């Protein structure tokens, strides 16, 4: 029994070993191939982001030409200041007034003759001196800025006395009537005196007599009888001078006169850079004339010639249908010191502005003239020393437009690097681009790959360009619904291999506004283009193909 059992076991073991010898080659690891290959795929989100129109505009607006209205509507504007004049160049106010009066032998009046030594006898005299501007200008009042009032008094009377000079039309800084006294204390007949008053803050209110403005000065000489006689040549001479006058304000009437005669031009580079934009039809293109006046005189502005000139030399003259010349409002007496801003819109309703845009102008030349008081009938004018009249022109294109097709093209540097994409590993990539477009513009995009000579070697998107649908807008052209699009682009290994040669990418976009360009659309700064890129990639990694 033992022997049988023992032999049975030995038999089994020997049989197993014999069988095992048949499998031995399966364990000969020196025959094992070291080649390893993995073929796998990978899905992954790549990048995502959002671009706001306002941010895009800010980035590309190197010329600082894009702005936005309070509601966020973006507009393109090119501005130029046409006229800027100060009050002191409008009206010439005399800086010196002089009047001289004499109190002489007229004093030998019975009262003096009957007086006894020691008696005081008053003598009165008034003098009007004119305060005139030019032409038919009229000055009602002036608030004096700087200067002096100089009184030179000389008396040859051999009497003492008191000379009082006053004017109810001259007010000092305290708004008190101007009055001053000169003590004549010299009996020798050689009395002289000079008084100087700083006139800053003084005001003068004129009286109009026969279309001439006058200021009246009053003189009172209290002569104390010294017992000496009065010779026929005795006189008290008073020279009144207003020197170095300037003014804070002048009230009155400034007669109509030509003040403005300017010419110049405004550059409009947008059309030079993108002539295709001439195909855009803008809903509300404008030339805005901005005025700012703190001069209390109405103006009338005339644009003698506004001519648009394109790069090809073609020109188009702006014709006004209505409202021209333009009367510029001025602050009234209730708003002295304030500035009245006014805006005049020259648009396609009031002019042939669309015809100017149609030639894709690169410059807009102009000649502007202006005159005061275009016959408003109001003769209450004023000027302040700070009064200014400013006239500016703005060529303005609100991004409210429609187009059945315009194109933009831009070339960027793009280098993957000398190593390119490792096509020994990456065999195919499918990039999915999902966009959520709030822009009411359908974009047909193609990206070309260029070599170092800027020669096109391939396009990113096979066949037709990818299309990003336009958002939906209401009748006012305002966004109602963004549009989401997903485009899948396949990059086979052949195309991935070309990336090594790429030095530039040329981006081309053909754009059509919503509803095939049949509706005006507005572009607001908060419109965004959200994008999301994800990838499906096929890899094949073979150990023998790796470097």
């Amino acid at each position, binding site marked *: 029994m033992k022997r049988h059992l023992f032999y049975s076991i030995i038999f*089994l073991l020997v049989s197993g070993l014999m069988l095992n010898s048949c499998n031995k080659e399966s364990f000969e690891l020196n025959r094992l191939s070291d080649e390893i290959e993995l073929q796998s795929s990978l899905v992954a989100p790549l990048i995502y982001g959002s671009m706001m129109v306002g941010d895009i505009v800010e980035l590309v607006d190197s010329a600082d030409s894009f702005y936005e209205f309070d509601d966020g509507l973006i507009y393109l504007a090119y501005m130029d200041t046409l006229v800027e004049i100060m009050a002191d160049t409008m009206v010439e106010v005399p800086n010196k007034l002089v009047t001289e009066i004499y109190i002489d032998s007229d004093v030998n009046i019975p009262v003096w003759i009957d007086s006894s030594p020691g008696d005081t006898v008053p003598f009165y005299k008034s003098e009007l001196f004119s305060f005139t501007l030019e032409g038919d200008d009229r000055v009602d009042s002036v608030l004096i800025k700087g200067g002096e009032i100089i009184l030179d008094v000389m008396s040859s009377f051999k009497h003492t006395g008191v000379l009082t000079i006053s004017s109810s039309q001259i007010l000092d800084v305290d708004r008190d009537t101007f009055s001053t006294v000169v003590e004549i204390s010299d009996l020798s007949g050689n009395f002289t005196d000079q008084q100087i008053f700083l006139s800053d803050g003084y005001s003068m209110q004129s009286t109009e007599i026969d279309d001439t403005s006058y200021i009246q000065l009053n003189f009172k000489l209290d002569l104390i009888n010294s017992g000496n006689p009065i010779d026929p040549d005795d006189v008290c001479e008073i020279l009144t001078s207003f020197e170095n006058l300037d003014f804070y304000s002048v009230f009155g009437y400034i007669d109509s006169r030509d003040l403005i005669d300017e010419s110049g031009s405004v550059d409009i580079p947008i059309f030079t850079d993108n002539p295709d934009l001439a195909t855009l039809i803008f809903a509300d293109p404008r030339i805005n004339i901005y005025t700012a006046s703190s001069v209390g005189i109405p103006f009338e502005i005339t644009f003698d010639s506004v001519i648009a000139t394109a790069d090809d030399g073609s020109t188009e003259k702006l014709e006004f249908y209505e409202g021209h010349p333009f009367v510029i409002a001025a602050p009234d007496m209730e708003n002295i010191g304030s500035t009245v801003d006014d805006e005049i819109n020259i648009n396609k309703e009031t002019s042939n502005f669309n015809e100017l845009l149609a030639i894709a102008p690169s410059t807009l030349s102009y000649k502007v003239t202006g005159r005061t008081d275009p016959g408003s009938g109001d003769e209450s004018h004023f000027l302040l020393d700070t009064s200014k009249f400013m006239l500016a022109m703005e060529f303005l294109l609100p991004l409210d437009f429609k187009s059945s097709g315009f194109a933009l093209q831009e070339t960027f540097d793009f280098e993957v690097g000398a190593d390119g994409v490792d096509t020994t590993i990456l065999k195919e990539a499918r990039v999915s681009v999902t966009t959520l477009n709030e822009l009411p513009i359908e974009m047909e995009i193609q990206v070309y790959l260029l070599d170092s000579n800027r020669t096109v070697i391939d396009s990113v998107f096979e066949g037709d360009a990818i299309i990003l649908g336009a958002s939906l807008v209401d009748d006012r052209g305002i966004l109602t619904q963004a549009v989401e699009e997903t485009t899948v682009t396949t990059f086979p290994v052949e195309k991935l291999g070309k990336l090594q040669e790429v030095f530039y990418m040329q981006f081309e976009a053909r754009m059509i506004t919503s509803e095939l360009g049949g509706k005006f659309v507005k572009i607001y700064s908060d419109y965004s283009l959200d994008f999301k890129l994800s990838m499906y990639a096929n890899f094949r990694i073979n150990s023998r193909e790796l470097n």
Partner: protein
Amino acid sequence: MNVSMKIFSRFTFGMGLIVCLSLPGWSQINNSVYFMPGVPQANRVNPAHQPNCELYIGFPVLAPMRMELSSNSLSYKDIIYEHPFHDSLITFLHPEGDKQAFLNQLKPLNNIVADVRASLISVGFNTKAGFFTFDVTTRVDEALYFPEDLANLLLKGAGEGQTYQLDGIGANLSAFDELSLGWSYSILDNLQVGVRGKMLFGIGDISTMRSNLSITTSQEEWNIQSDMMVSASLPFAEVIYNEDGMIEDIVIDEEIESLKPFALPKYVFNFGNSGFAADVGINYRPIDQLLLSVSALDIGFISWKDEVHEATYEMAYDYVGLELDPLELSDDFSFGDYIDSTFSQMGDSLASFLEFTPGGTYSKRLNTKLYVGASYFVTPKINFGILSRTDFLREQISQQFTASANFTTGRFINLTLSYTYRNSYVKNLGAGFSFNVGPLNLYMISDNSLNALFWPQEARSVNLWFGMNLVFGYKQFQKVDGDRPLVY
């Protein structure tokens, strides 16, 4: 070599060290030994078992030398096989390899388990108070876990709308010394009980304490959910942290790193990492021909306290792509710069979830095993047995069934043939023998030695139990109706 590579290499060295501590032999309990007559160390499987002698003394290291390497899903032929057209071998990763066939073999959670045990001292002796055993064993328990979805992710890639459940991924590596004292006693003529108490001294450990990880991939989003925690006790290394709390360097004991002899002994019987465990067993013979038995091994734990470090990685991360503002790009900040910058930020962000905590303690239970067996004695020399073995691993429960035929000729030779169903593999044919020449006892047993001979490419596990003892006071087996059972 950069810092991370340096740390990685040292970490790898540390892991390797734990694994190498298993030398000189790979060993683990096999099932065939359960019913194997004439093997003194069979009481390792069932503490109630009393060897058929008065005294045995195991040869150091060889009493026993045991090895097992197993996978619950993969065999050699799933990884390496003949080229379909050429005279060469290829792996499943070869262009002509069948990756899908490889994936088909995988279970939701796969493991590679290796246990290593070497007994330095193994002594047993019989007294009136019962049979006593004393063993000193160095053990290394190793288990690597990888989910099926990890292989799917690596081999097929990240698919649209796929969720890859990577729960359970990780490794558990423990090296420890076991000092055990066993006692078996016959309470009744037909009832034996046994118990073995064990003191455990941890040498080193790396344990995946929590492993919840999933990755969902799509073109829209990648979602990563992670709740991972790894604890380690590395008494033979100094882990240096930087100001940010990240590991800056791992300095392995120089003597260990230079593999100097006698470097290891200072890490054995490390009271800093102590634990306790117990084995229990019962043999019951309701009738003379039938023996029923139950044993549970490794009921216990080790409390790891020495040079403990904890790493956690808890996060819920949604990756929806790199946010790009094209308007920020310029000549000074190109797209390439942006990608570099963003990936760097993303890497930092992902790394920020990784937290290291030095110090602390953790407990880790041993992989408990439960045996339930029955054997029927046709004659005193021949019996047939069936055995159920359940392994309670950290992440899984592993079940095996073994049937065996056991023969004894008396003292000289004992034989066993076994069949085991394990890891969904049905062709496990095992055999074992035990010889006694004078006091010298020699045995070699395996659960799958025969299929290793007949179908070696299909084997999902290999185990071998080899031992050499000096046996004294050998008892002749009794008649079937005698006092002692044949195999216990």
